[in-house]
């Protein structure tokens, strides 16, 4: 049994790491032709491009970060109350609310992209940072509400009532009583929101249209270019911030107080 | 049926030793309670017997067979968990049939035995229900039935009554006793409630912090506790320190006559114990002392005095019609019959 377990874990580690290896090596390679296991020459060409102001990569990095952070905050603002309502109350039309809020995760984005593009142009939101943030908000809502409604459904409202009767004001009730109880769900919801925004291509293209340059836009323009070295370097630029996010939220993903519960319904 | 023997069994989790070199012998057909406060290692002992956990040291015998290397599923010992753990995705019938199905028992046999056991737990006709449609008491009965249907040699019950309401407890207790009688199955159950242990068990094993403190018939725990701690776990007791002097014990109140024979070493410090209900208000032949009454509370079916005995306060329980009209604040005579005194 333990041998089997070791094999599974080893397979897991290899399976995760293996496709990252060529990306990493290519990022620092000049030439790397088949069948060589190691690059024929190393080069920082793609990195000089990454830091070249004309490449707009650093600008995109900043934009992506600003947008993803704003989306995360907005998603929390709209998602936490919605999650609370769904997790804690029974009310008329709850089912329809749940379906509406979940649909951006179930309906393929292509079905709505074109119509949304027209709407954004008409509302004067296209080519604006605000528009990009707003459009990114939509696919994050299902993930945020599911995470939040899960933690709220375990939350006993009498804690809040007790705190109030002990004289806590509603803000401090939230801070000292509600927040700690629902925090894991908030972290997981926030993580998903950040990552969804961080990796968003189609919606950014459609609304930001290139005026608002984000990392995925630049990555996609190289995705089919075959410039493996640049693809590798851009991928690393892409992954490092998301790694930081993972470090911050890792412990809430698994363990006793996992915030992932909502996706399993446990 | 088999005898069960534990020899020098120890178990630790990290630095925390939960069972300390436990020796215990249970005869075939006995009904035994493992009693102790929460977290004293009772459930661990049960799991060691069931084979769900391995002891770090020591041996588990079923009869003369060493069981340590026998996996749980091969032992004729079935455990019933505290929180029922009915499989939510199975019906009552499927739950009960689970163990038989795992043993690849013939389908017809399974059906027959399931129906038989459903009748025993008085749940005929409820076999198709889902656990979520059952009451707490019904769940517990199904959980018990699920174990019994396997006709185990050894039935291990973890806190079988703790999750039930008061009136359901009586019912369940009846069922356990009935099952034990009918199946003649050696039964070990875990509880933290001494009353439950007293009502059900032939013998009780009292465990504190993984140590077996006393393993004896129920009556002994009242009358012959082996320590102050054991005594206080079994109801209210009054203690007074003193030292032996011949057949008497010298205390700050004076000399108490005791049921001691003369073998006791003079000068040894002992604790003198007497239960509140054994103290007689009024002056008697031996061991009568004048004690100040701190309080007197009318409790309906009895009256409770709190009296000063030396430095401490003792409880005295008197019948509803107080034999003496003692009042709060006065000093009065109380008699401590020597045959009711136990030294620990």
């Amino acid at each position, binding site marked *: 049994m333990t041998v089997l377990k070791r094999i599974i*874990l080893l397979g*897991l580690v290899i*399976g*995760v790491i293996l*496709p*990252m*290896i060529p*990306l990493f090596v290519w990022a620092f390679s000049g030439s790397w*032709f088949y069948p060589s*296991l190691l690059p024929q020459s190393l080069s920082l060409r793609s990195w000089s491009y990454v830091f070249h102001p004309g490449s707009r990569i650093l600008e995109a990095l900043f934009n992506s970060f600003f947008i993803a952070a704003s989306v995360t905050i907005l998603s929390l*603002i709209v*998602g936490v*109350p*919605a999650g609370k*309502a769904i997790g804690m*109350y029974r009310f008329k039309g709850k089912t329809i609310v749940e379906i*509406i*809020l979940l649909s*951006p995760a*179930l309906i*393929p984005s292509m*079905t*709505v*992209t*074109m*119509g*949304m593009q027209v*709407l954004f142009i008409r509302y004067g939101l296209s080519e604006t940072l605000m528009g990009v943030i*707003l*459009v990114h908000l*939509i696919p994050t809502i299902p993930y945020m509400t*599911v995470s939040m409604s899960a933690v709220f459904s375990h939350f006993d409202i009498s804690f809040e009532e007790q705190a109030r009767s002990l004289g806590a004001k509603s803000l401090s009730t939230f801070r000292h009583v509600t927040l700690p109880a629902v925090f894991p769900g908030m972290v997981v919801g926030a993580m998903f929101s950040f990552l969804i925004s961080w*990796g968003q*291509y189609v919606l950014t293209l459609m609304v930001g249209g290139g005026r608002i340059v984000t990392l995925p836009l630049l990555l996609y323009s190289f*995705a*089919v270019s075959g410039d493996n070295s640049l693809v590798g370097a851009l*991928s690393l630029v892409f*992954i490092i911030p998301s790694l930081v996010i*993972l470090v911050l939220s890792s412990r809430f*993903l*698994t363990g006793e107080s*996992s915030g992932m519960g909502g996706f*399993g*319904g*446990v | 049926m088999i005898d069960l023997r534990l020899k020098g069994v120890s178990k630790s989790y990290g630095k925390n030793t939960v069972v300390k070199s436990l020796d215990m012998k249970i005869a075939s057909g006995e009904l035994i309670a493992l009693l102790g406060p929460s977290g004293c290692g009772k459930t661990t002992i049960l799991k060691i017997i*069931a084979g769900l956990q391995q002891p770090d040291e020591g041996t588990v015998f079923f009869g003369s067979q060493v069981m340590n290397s026998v996996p*749980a*599923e*091969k032992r004729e010992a*079935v*455990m019933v*968990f505290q*929180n029922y*753990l009915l*499989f939510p995705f*199975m019906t009552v019938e499927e739950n009960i049939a689970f163990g038989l199905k*795992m043993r690849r028992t013939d389908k017809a046999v399974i059906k027959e035995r399931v129906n038989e056991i459903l009748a025993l737990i008085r749940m005929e006709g409820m076999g198709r229900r889902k*656990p979520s449609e059952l009451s707490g008491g019904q769940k517990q009965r199904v959980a018990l039935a*699920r174990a019994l249907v*396997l006709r185990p040699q050894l039935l291990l019950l973890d806190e079988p009554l703790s999750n039930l309401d008061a009136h359901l407890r009586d019912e369940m207790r009846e069922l356990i006793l009935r099952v034990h009688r009918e199946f003649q199955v050696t039964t070990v159950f875990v509880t933290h409630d001494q009353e439950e242990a007293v009502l059900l068990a032939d013998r009780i094993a009292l465990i504190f912090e993984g140590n077996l403190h006393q393993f004896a018939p129920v009556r002994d725990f009242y009358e012959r506790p082996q320590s102050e701690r054991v005594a206080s776990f079994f109801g209210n007791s009054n203690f007074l320190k003193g030292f032996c002097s011949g057949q008497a014990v010298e205390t700050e109140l004076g000399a108490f006559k005791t049921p001691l024979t003369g073998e006791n070493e003079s000068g040894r410090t002992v604790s003198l114990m007497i239960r509140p209900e054994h103290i007689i208000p009024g002056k008697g032949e031996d061991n009568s002392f004048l004690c100040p009454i701190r309080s007197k509370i009318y409790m309906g079916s009895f009256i409770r005095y709190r009296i000063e005995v030396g430095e401490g306060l003792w409880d005295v329980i008197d019948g509803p019609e107080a034999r003496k009209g003692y009042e709060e604040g006065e000093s009065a005579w109380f008699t401590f019959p020597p045959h009711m005194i136990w030294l620990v």
Partner: protein
Amino acid sequence: MNRNTAAWLLTAPALIPVLILFFGGFGLGILQSFSFFPLIGLDTPNFSAYTEVLAEDELLLSLVLTLLVSLSATFLTIALAVTAALALRSAERGRRGILFLFQFPITVPHVIIALGALLLLSQSGFAARLTAFFGIISDSTDFPVLVNDRLGLGIIYVYLWKQIPFIGIIALSVLQSMGNDYEELARSLGAKQSQVLFHVILPLMRPALLPGSVLCFAFTFGSYEVPFLLGRSYPSMLPVLVYRYFTNFNLVQRPLAMALAVLITLFLLVTVILYKKFLGGRNRL
């Protein structure tokens, strides 16, 4: 305040953008799939785009391929995720590190891993170089075609890479909240290790794995990025077909794109309902 009103007020901030923007866009998409767009003078709705899409001879093959890829990706994801979660639950040495690594793919966008898979699995990729290095293959053409292949293996690999951790973490949290009790109980009742797994652990986990796997299925069925990079030119998966219509320089094809997208959405809704009905009807934990 009435509880209904309170609940609606609480959900309003999330509902409004979804309703206006998402369903607004959805509505416009549906309208355009009926070749109905008054703004540019198309004001008689009709089914021509649907009939044309349904007559497309690539459609059936495309549907088969899409089903093959998304179903096998979903079921393999569940199987491997449960396996991984079971192994991770009781892992002791290096557990934190392995767990972190296990969570890592959640943070990596699909494009990146698709590109990584391309560099790893193509016939001149890293895997082919490794096998050549160990003398297993002598020429790059001996290496099996794993990307841009007939069965969508490369696509499936990328989806597995992304989704196993997602489902696996859900599975792990179910296992953790389940504790050891059910397992011990089952063993005490005489179940062997394998019986415990198939008769107890898996059924217990099933309701929890359902929502996540539905999300995975919907995603693999409806998104084009990965098959666009790793699929073959013919037949292509349905979302790629939509994308091709959508980006075609011939602007007349846009209603076709929307019609096919609407059909995909309908298909997904029906599948989800059936899936739920036949697999998810059992009781919850």
